[in-house]
């Protein structure tokens, strides 16, 4: 297996006219196409170099992604408001990271899979999952609210990094059946310290699987800054240790993200092996509503990142290019409002999960012991009802 892998890396490198090492190592600079003020950077400033060229995606793709970006921001802010109103206990917001969220879903084809973390609700919704179903987990009805196979989206859960291995397994099963499924596996910067990060990247590389590991480096793992997670030159540099290619991209530049991920999907689907993409972004809000970010970071730092806001940047860029009209902008905003309104309506609706569901899905058929416990609960409930 490993000899084949080396050949594929060598072939990919040769097709770009560079060495395998230059193919695997990230470009010397972060890939950024649109600057934080919305202007397009010169080719040299974009960080592109041979083998690391990223053409700007098609206009309609940019507009569609922006539409989802506007919706994503609104979803984050609506959900945070619902937490403040006590409609749900917790929501880990991706406010400030919406460009990453949208790009992770947008780069995939219909048969492809996405494996999100608990913070990636906007990516889940962007992939087509109903917003209220996506939020069921946070409303507290059940540990998950949608059918992963229907949407080809892994279920969100809170153990760190474990989902990367699930992504590897999905890709491996598809490979064995001769399907050309690509899988995007998401994690954060803190997750790169977990053992499963290492095991997943190594398995994907050894089995030469079409997986893109997409790390949103938002600078903090709850309170702990990246410098306490790693002293590697960058997270993307870790790729070369596994014999795969890595790239760094501005995670608040939706144009660059789409360019890097769409090219990445083409490369891995074509057999170039897995890919590690590190997006530099920032968690504008606290880890969750239960966290107090003022205990570990300065407001000046937050202000600095607010100026790099991905939504504002994309809006300026598209407007300046004449692609985004006032009319389109209003339509996108209205669509976002409609989603927010559906969320409010769905999350405010009283829900009464059936207690008997507690026993229904632990096994394919409840064991005799669970049947007994289910009967006991039913009896308790009927007594409660009677009194």
């Amino acid at each position, binding site marked *: 297996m490993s000899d084949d892998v080396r050949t594929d890396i060598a072939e990919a490198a040769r097709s770009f006219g560079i060495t395998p090492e230059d193919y695997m190592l990230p470009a010397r600079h972060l890939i950024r196409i649109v600057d934080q003020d919305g202007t397009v950077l010169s080719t040299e400033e974009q960080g592109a170099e041979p083998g690391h060229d990223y053409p700007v995606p098609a206009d309609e793709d940019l507009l569609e992604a922006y539409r989802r970006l506007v919706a994503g921001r609104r979803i984050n802010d609506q959900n945070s408001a619902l937490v403040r109103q006590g409609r749900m206990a917790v929501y880990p917001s991706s406010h400030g990271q919406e460009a990453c969220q949208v790009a992770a879903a947008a780069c995939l084809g219909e048969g492809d*899979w996405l494996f999100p973390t608990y913070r990636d609700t906007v990516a889940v919704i962007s992939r087509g999952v109903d917003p209220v179903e996506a939020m069921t987990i946070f409303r507290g009805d*059940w*540990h*998950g609210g949608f*059918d*992963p*196979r*229907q949407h080809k989206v*892994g*279920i969100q*859960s809170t*153990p760190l990094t*474990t989902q*990367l*291995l*699930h*992504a*590897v*397994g*999905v*890709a*491996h*099963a*598809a490979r*064995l*059946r001769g399907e050309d499924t690509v899988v995007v596996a998401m994690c954060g910067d803190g997750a790169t310290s977990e*053992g*499963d990060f*290492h*095991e*997943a990247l*190594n*398995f994907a590389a*050894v089995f030469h699987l079409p997986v893109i590991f997409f790390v949103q480096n938002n600078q903090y793992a709850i309170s702990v800054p990246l410098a306490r997670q790693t002293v590697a030159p960058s997270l993307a540099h870790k790729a070369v240790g596994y014999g795969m290619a890595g790239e760094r991209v501005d995670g608040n530049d939706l144009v660059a993200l789409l360019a890097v991920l769409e090219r990445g999907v083409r490369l891995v689907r074509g057999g170039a092996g897995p890919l590690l993409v590190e997006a530099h972004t920032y968690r504008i809000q606290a880890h969750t509503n239960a966290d107090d970010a003022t205990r570990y970071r300065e407001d000046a730092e937050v202000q600095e990142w607010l100026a790099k806001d991905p939504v504002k940047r994309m809006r300026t860029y598209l407007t300046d290019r004449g692609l985004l009209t006032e009319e389109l902008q209003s339509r996108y905003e209205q669509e976002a409002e409609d989603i927010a309104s559906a969320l409010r309506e769905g999350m405010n609706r009283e829900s009464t999960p059936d207690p008997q*569901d507690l026993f*229904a*899905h*632990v*096994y*394919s*058929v409840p*064991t*005799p*012991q669970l049947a007994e416990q289910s009967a006991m609960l039913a009896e308790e409930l009927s007594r409660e009802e009677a009194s």
Partner: protein
Amino acid sequence: MSTTQNTDAGPRPGSAQTGPDTGEITVAVDAARESTTRAGGAGVPQPRPESPAAPVPAGPVTMAKALNAALADALSADAGVVVFGEDVGTLGGVFRITDGLAARFGTDRCFDTPLAESGIAGMSVGMAINGMRPVIEMQFDAFAYPAFEQIASHIAKMSNRTRGALPMPIVIRIPYAGGIGGVEHHCDSSEAYYAHTPGLKVVTPATVADAYLLLRAAIDSDDPIVFMEPKKLYFSKDRVDLDALREQYESGAASGTGPRAAVESGGAAIARTGSDATLIAYGPSVPTALAAAAAAAEEGRSLEVVDVRTIVPFDDATVSESVRRTGRAIVISEESGFASVASEIAARVQERCFHSLAAPVLRVTGFDIPYPAPKLEHHFLPGVDRILDAVDDLQWED
């Protein structure tokens, strides 16, 4: 001198240690060597049987061979079955349970992974999500611990989390328990960790026939099953006809009777009938319980032996019926006794059979200590004498 099975296999630096030269260990080592000889040595492709139905004459068959046949037949029966783990491909597993599978079914169906147990378990989750039925091997009991997060947090919970949308038809094969003179981390009885985790089933065979039948049923189950193989019984032999077993399993599989029903809702077996007391045992302790019952019979005491077979789901009905009949019960297991499977069984028997009991339910288990070094393990393991002492303590009136 290399005296342990794992030394033959040599997958871990820590395992290549020198063991003591006791008779018991030599037997285990000889068995392992015999197995190696049979396999023709590591890394050499072996001639395959012509077909999955190649006739195997009724005769002495080892548990290892029965497990191997079950895996081969499952691979033949269902294209979604894949077998993977450490050293399971070319080598055929350090205990040779997967011997010949990679050569016969191809390296897409039986393959080696990098040496990373969480990776193996985590990848099996994804493969199950995407329609496969993974059978993964943890090389030894204590080497399965790195996989515990994937097992406890995902394999056990995924079906419940997704309201049944993502069942996890995964079998986690774990060689477990002691009695082979193994070095540390090669002899743990880790069944209680899994039995305590809702969503998992825990199955352990004690006979050659059960090894075949229960493994087939485990692979066909849509639930995740920790299949615990008593490694000291790998090279125990019994006269079984593997063709007949295959026939028995495949004819019963469709109707949901036999081993499939055992895996679905619990299926203990009466291993020996008796009238004075019930010995409840599973896996490696069943032969010990049977030996104790034979010894007791010579002294005029009639002991029944129940082989639990499925720790989860536990067959309360069969166990309770036996204890109500005999009025006395002892639970035997190799694990440390505190908060153990034996404790759970004792509690269940007491709750259900209290008015039939003539004496408290006793447990004969390992001590509450880390698994001992080879020269001391016989002090730890529940043996015939310790079981008979417990039998004497069952408040007999005579």
